[in-house]
């Protein structure tokens, strides 16, 4: 179980916050999907999630799974089916930690 304090810490940690909301220059694969050259980690997640909702890509039998279309596949490691649980982790891959 994730302790409550840690959650609070995430919100309070300015470094983490910056990682989530700072604009980042995107790699070409992601650029095509998003349609712009810069986006924040958080913005990217929101974009992908609303894309999934708009296109009704959630499996009707199991809402927890996404049936990727071609466009989505290109940014989610080419997987045909993705679990919602993994979505944040997959998107995080595009936003590697900045070396100091």
């Amino acid at each position, binding site marked *: 179980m*994730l*302790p409550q304090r840690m959650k609070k810490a995430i919100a309070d940690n300015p470094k983490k916050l910056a990682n989530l909301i700072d604009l980042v220059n995107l790699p070409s694969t992601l650029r095509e999907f998003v349609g712009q050259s810069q986006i924040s980690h958080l913005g990217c997640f929101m974009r992908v999630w609303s894309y999934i909702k708009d296109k009704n890509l959630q499996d009707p039998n199991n809402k927890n799974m996404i049936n990727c279309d071609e466009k989505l596949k290109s940014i989610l490691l080419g997987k045909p089916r993705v679990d919602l649980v993994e*979505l944040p982790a997959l998107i995080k891959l595009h936003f590697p930690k900045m070396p100091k």
Partner: protein
Amino acid sequence: MGKIPPSFRSAISTSLIRNPSSSSSSSSVTVAPVEKPAWRRPAKLKPSKKSSNTKVNHVVEQPSLFKSPNLSDAKALFSSLFSSTKRAPVDPNSLLKSYFSISTVQDSIAFLNYATKSDPSFSPDRSTFHALLLSSCKADSATLEPVHLVLNLMINKGLPPNQVTVDISVRALCSLGREDDAIELIREFALKHSLPDTYTYNFMVKHLCKTRALSSAYNFIDDMRNSFDVKPDLVTYTILIDNVCNSKNLREATRLLDVLRDEGFKPDCFVYNTIMKGYCMLSRGGEVIAVYKKMKEEGVQPDLVTYNTLIFGLSKSGRVKDARKYLDVMVETGHFPDAATYTSLMNGMCREGDVKGALWLFEDMEAKGCEPNSCTYSTLLHGLCKARLLDKAMELYTVMKKGEIKLETGAYATFIRYLCRSGKVAEAYDVFDYAVESKSLSDVTAYSTLEGTLKWLKKAREQGLAV
């Protein structure tokens, strides 16, 4: 307390304790009990300071006519407005104030002189000078020189500074973090013109408590007492007690209470409420009741805040039965329990694992016509999750969504976690969407909670701990 996991307790106490200090407008459980001592002062402030405050606001709200702080531009504009035979319906005072708010002190004074010369019918009044004073306090200067400049000007024009003058400058200086200058100014005023009134005095004490060490507030009080015979009043003591209670220094609070008695004051409802709040923060239920009994003994009539604090404190320290008893006492004495009262009690019940009781109370509350607030819902949602009644929790969430009631951070995190734990990831995403949409919490908080929970879930699955 055996069956309640420790993380739950910390969750409740942090989420409930933190709220009152951070936001005064949000409707959290503790806000009502804690806020009382705070609103008392602004309310009292109004009668005497209303004139000054409206003046100040006036300056700020003024849509700036002047695009640049350049003096010659301003003069030209002034001439164009006033030289024409057909006078424009412009109040020179507001025009000047608008200029003061963007310009430097020297330019402002020059412009003021120009205005008085070019328009003989116009004479600056006290409010004009106060606007000027305000900008001089905000001037980028390490000393009080600009302030003195304006004050001398005022005296020359036959408008000696009064208590409103000192109040305005002190508040302006304090808002910029120049407490030492403010104190110096108060001393100077007390020597030359007038003693600070209780509002300025109490504001200063409160500000010192907030920004500096307690000793600096004591020094200020001693200094004022010794040099000018200005004595602290009951409100001052309430501020001090509130401050020491917030830093959990109950011993000092008790000492202050004795000092207050020695000075010949009789502690009133606010003082008792403040002390009671202090004990609540330490979860010392017994002491909370002791304060209540003491109040009764001294013949001080408890008010709604007293009961809310009492019930909150007892619930927090795990004495829900007693809290329940006082709800009845409260009703008997003719007070109407509000959302905060019920929420505190529900919180206590949920903590004991008595969610049924909490749900019953929720119905009772609605039946009595008391509107539940977002904190009530969040408390209940939290309790339902903790009691593993996820279906009920989903039901409640649907109601909340329909009523556009905001989620609170703690309840949101718990709800997400329990949804994920039982494999309802899609629902968790839905809750995330709602939290973002309803602006319950910031996008970042909502996302990092979701991300963290999912990360945990993934790990748990790998270890074969979750579905």
